[in-house]
């Protein structure tokens, strides 16, 4: 387990360092994810080391958003007098974006004969 955690931290650290030095427009952990993907691709042994920790942490991904969520409650007043308009924009556009994205995926997959097994 300690090897898996070390691997996650190393990838994140490298990602953070690279995004800062190269001034990349993406967060360190996202670059860390790409680095981890490359590591998994080229080090066959790594997958079995990573599996239990990755599945454990991703199985409770929701938990990790709780502290930020609690912070939001204290700042909900920031929405101010425009709260209704902002909430309507969030809900409306999220519904439309999920629908549009999923329909596009399904239609294009059908056109290109790319069905899932």
């Amino acid at each position, binding site marked *: 387990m300690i090897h898996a955690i070390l691997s996650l*931290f190393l990838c*994140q650290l490298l*990602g953070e360092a690279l995004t800062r030095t190269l001034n990349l*427009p*993406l*967060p360190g*952990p*996202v670059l*860390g994810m790409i680095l*981890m*993907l490359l*590591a*998994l*691709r080229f080090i066959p042994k790594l997958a079995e080391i990573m*599996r239990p920790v*990755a*599945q454990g*942490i*991703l199985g409770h991904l*929701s*938990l*990790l*958003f*709780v*502290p*930020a*969520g*609690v*912070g*939001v*409650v*204290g700042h*909900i007043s920031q*929405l101010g007098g*425009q709260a209704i*308009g*902002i909430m*309507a*924009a*969030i*809900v*409306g*556009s*999220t*519904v*439309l*974006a*999920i*629908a*549009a*994205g*999923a*329909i*596009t*995926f*399904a239609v*294009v*997959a059908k056109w290109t004969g*790319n*069905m899932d097994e």
Partner: protein
Amino acid sequence: MNDFTEIWAYLSRQPLVWLTATLAAYVIGDTCFRAANRAPIVNPVLISVILLAGLLHLTATPYAEYFQGAQFVHFLLGPATVALAFPLWENLPRLRRAAIPILAALTVGSVTAVATALAIAQVLGVQSMPMISLSVKSATAPVAIGISQSMGGSPTLTAVVVILTGICGAMVATPLLNRLGLTDWRARGFALGVAAHGIGTARAFQVHPTAGAFAGLGMALNAVFTALVAPLVLGLFN
């Protein structure tokens, strides 16, 4: 009573109290979610947040003190993002095969998220600052805050809008996609990751492993794509 006050005064300075409370609130939220047959409306994040916000209010605890404990959970967001590489690696052949639908759905999903949010807000008379936050709301929080700051937006307001978007996406996705009759887990997960970043991805993992893997990819791709699209679309509305 005096003893209790003293013990409380001591304990509340330790990170352990609020770390324990965060985990306990999540266990309660997750138990409700399971008891409700994983109904999306019973969102575990939302329940935990409401419980903890109520508790902080009752005990007159400032958020900074709460965060002393909660930071240990919050910290894991970074390593968890790196861990998303594992399901991506497991699904690599399927991801490669689906490259064209992925790019198409990314473009349409991301542009729809930005353009419709701004259009609805403008019709309802929302003014400049929140417009900036709304334009980046589907990207993962650090990216969204970074882009909005570079356009002159407020980081706090952006964080609020981003988190609300994630919770909203996690709650509406299942009933919406069922009504649309879409059964492809790749399409369902990917669209949710693009529209509702990490919180949507967390929901996708609760529903199906394939949906989770594709949601993680959608979130990562949209982090980059939003940085390109949001300033362009926002320009059309000013």
